[in-house]
């Protein structure tokens, strides 16, 4: 027995012992290193994507801000970059973005939160198993389809209620956008609530609290950080949404906070310019990068806020 185990493998040269074949210089280690380097390159690629986004936006915006002073960009109250009398006041586009996002969040945050609480604390297993995939489907509908729906279905209905409502308006776009965002808010908030340990609920029930009292005073506070990041995600979705607004809100720049008016947002302005045939390198071409940079900074600010909220309110069990 012991003799046969000690006998060298005839297929290998006698000189190569097992420890030599497994040594750091052996080919299998070289191959491992190469594969690891390739996989690392794939992971690091995502960092290059971010850098490329920042580089492209800053480079083109830099040229833009050589012509247009930053103070004009921030404080001018007109946005007419394609006219002879050109004005570049981003406030005009921001007002459209903020108004439509505000309408959307007024729909998405209450409904999303209620759905999350209901699914996590009230609904039975069966309801949850059906509702969650359904919400996912709702989030998977292409936004151009939502835009079509807002323009051809919701706006005519709203016009029956407010006869003065124009065919393109921020209200109908914002409402549909809110419905689109519900799944994101609901599903992330629900995950956060479900992560709250059962013992907290049991403690609350043992004190005689009802489901609603437990949900509102025990589970929700414990899940604050997760719910807050769900809201933040909803906000950045709303701010970055494009097609619903491009289709249903009209694309005229309009400094207004009244949702019943038409208006352009940062995103729909970019679409409008891209649809036309602006020459590469013209000032009109550069405006979309300046607008894009503004959008990126806004979403970045929300992401950082979300990150901070998660850290600040994280409950560790």
């Amino acid at each position: 027995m012991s003799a046969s185990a000690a006998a060298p493998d005839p297929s290998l040269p006698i000189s190569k012992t097992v420890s030599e074949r497994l040594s750091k210089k052996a080919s299998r280690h070289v191959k491992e290193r190469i594969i690891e380097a390739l996989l690392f390159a794939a992971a690091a690629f995502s960092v290059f994507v971010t850098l490329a986004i920042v580089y492209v936006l800053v480079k083109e915006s830099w040229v833009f801000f050589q012509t247009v002073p930053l103070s004009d960009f921030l404080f001018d109250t007109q946005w007419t970059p394609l006219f002879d009398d050109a004005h570049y006041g981003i406030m005009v586009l921001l007002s459209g973005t903020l108004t439509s996002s505000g309408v959307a969040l007024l729909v998405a945050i209450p409904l999303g939160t209620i759905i999350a609480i209901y699914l996590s604390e009230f609904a039975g297993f069966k309801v949850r198993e059906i509702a969650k995939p359904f919400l996912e489907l709702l989030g998977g509908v292409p936004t151009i389809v939502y835009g079509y729906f807002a323009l051809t279905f919701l706006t005519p209905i709203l016009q029956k209620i407010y006869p003065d409502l124009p065919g393109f308006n921020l209200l109908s776009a914002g409402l549909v956008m809110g419905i689109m965002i519900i799944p994101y808010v609901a599903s992330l908030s629900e995950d956060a609530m479900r992560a709250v340990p059962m013992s907290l609920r049991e403690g609350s029930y043992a004190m005689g609290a009802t489901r609603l009292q437990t949900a509102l005073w025990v589970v929700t506070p414990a899940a604050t950080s997760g719910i807050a990041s769900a809201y933040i995600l909803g906000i950045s979705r709303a701010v970055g949404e494009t097609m619903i607004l491009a289709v249903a809100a009209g694309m005229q720049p309009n400094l207004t906070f009244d949702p019943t008016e038409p208006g352009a947002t940062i995103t729909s302005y970019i679409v409008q310019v891209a649809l036309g045939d602006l020459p590469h390198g013209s000032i009109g071409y550069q405006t979309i990068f300046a607008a894009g940079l503004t959008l990126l900074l806004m979403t970045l600010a929300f992401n950082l806020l979300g990150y901070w909220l998660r850290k600040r309110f994280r409950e560790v069990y």
Partner: protein
Amino acid sequence: MLQTADLNAIRAIIARAKRWDLFFSLLGILSLMVGVLTFTVLFLDMAIQGVPRLSYEFFTSFPSRRAENAGILSAWVGTILVMLVTALSAVPLGVAAGVYLEEYAPKNWITDIIEINISNLAGIPSIVYGLLALGLFVYYFGFGQSILSAGLTLALLILPVIIVATRESIRAIPQSIHEGSYACGATTWQTVSDHILPYSSAGILTGVIIGMARAIGETAPIITIGALTFIAFLPNAPFTGDPPAGMFEWIFAPFTVMPIQMFNWTSRPEAAFTINAAAAGFVLVFMTLAMNGLAIYLRYQLRKNIKW
């Protein structure tokens, strides 16, 4: 001993609390119904308007100035070709990145940066990817407004989805599988290629399908790179045409995709084009729903069948 009055007061409190509970349950169901109803109305409205328009000719005709002759041939062919480029570039890259982060990455600041960066990328609006592609692919690399530019743009967009799905399905594999493989003397790559990837492939596939379903419906980044909306021809198939096209010449061809065709029709005032838009939208929603449904079904099967 409790007084009857106290008992009654307590009963009243309990009854009130229960009423609130019931009220909130109803509110929850109502809120869910808002989502469900909107979706149903949206789908039915589009089906009622669009389905009568769906015919063999609608799928085999090019867009046209005359609404009744217009079709979606160039759009659906374009969508398939763009998706091909997207899948071929995003899936290997995303899976590789996911595998690295789960199986190889040491705990250090580089890994932290990559992880934070990926979650940040997921939050960047899709139109910003369009601007990146316009500056980088279209002008800097000189790919022009081609299938290649669009496919790569959408690939960047769904990369975070695929990375996250890969990581989650790898994380679902018990540690004992890793340990067993390493105990037999396998290297990290042997463990990954013989065990981790095969066991996580269904989960990764689910993520890939969800990502592709999102990419199919994305309109904004493709408009931003300046894709034409009126394309009444198909790119030459490899080795056809005069002079014969090369194997990969189609990736530099101009194109249109389903959502752009729909946007084009939606933004026209004539009612006949709105009907075309409804029909195109119905096909689009049907495609994304089928893909999402497949992903949900796969995940359900996965959860049911795999018991580690």
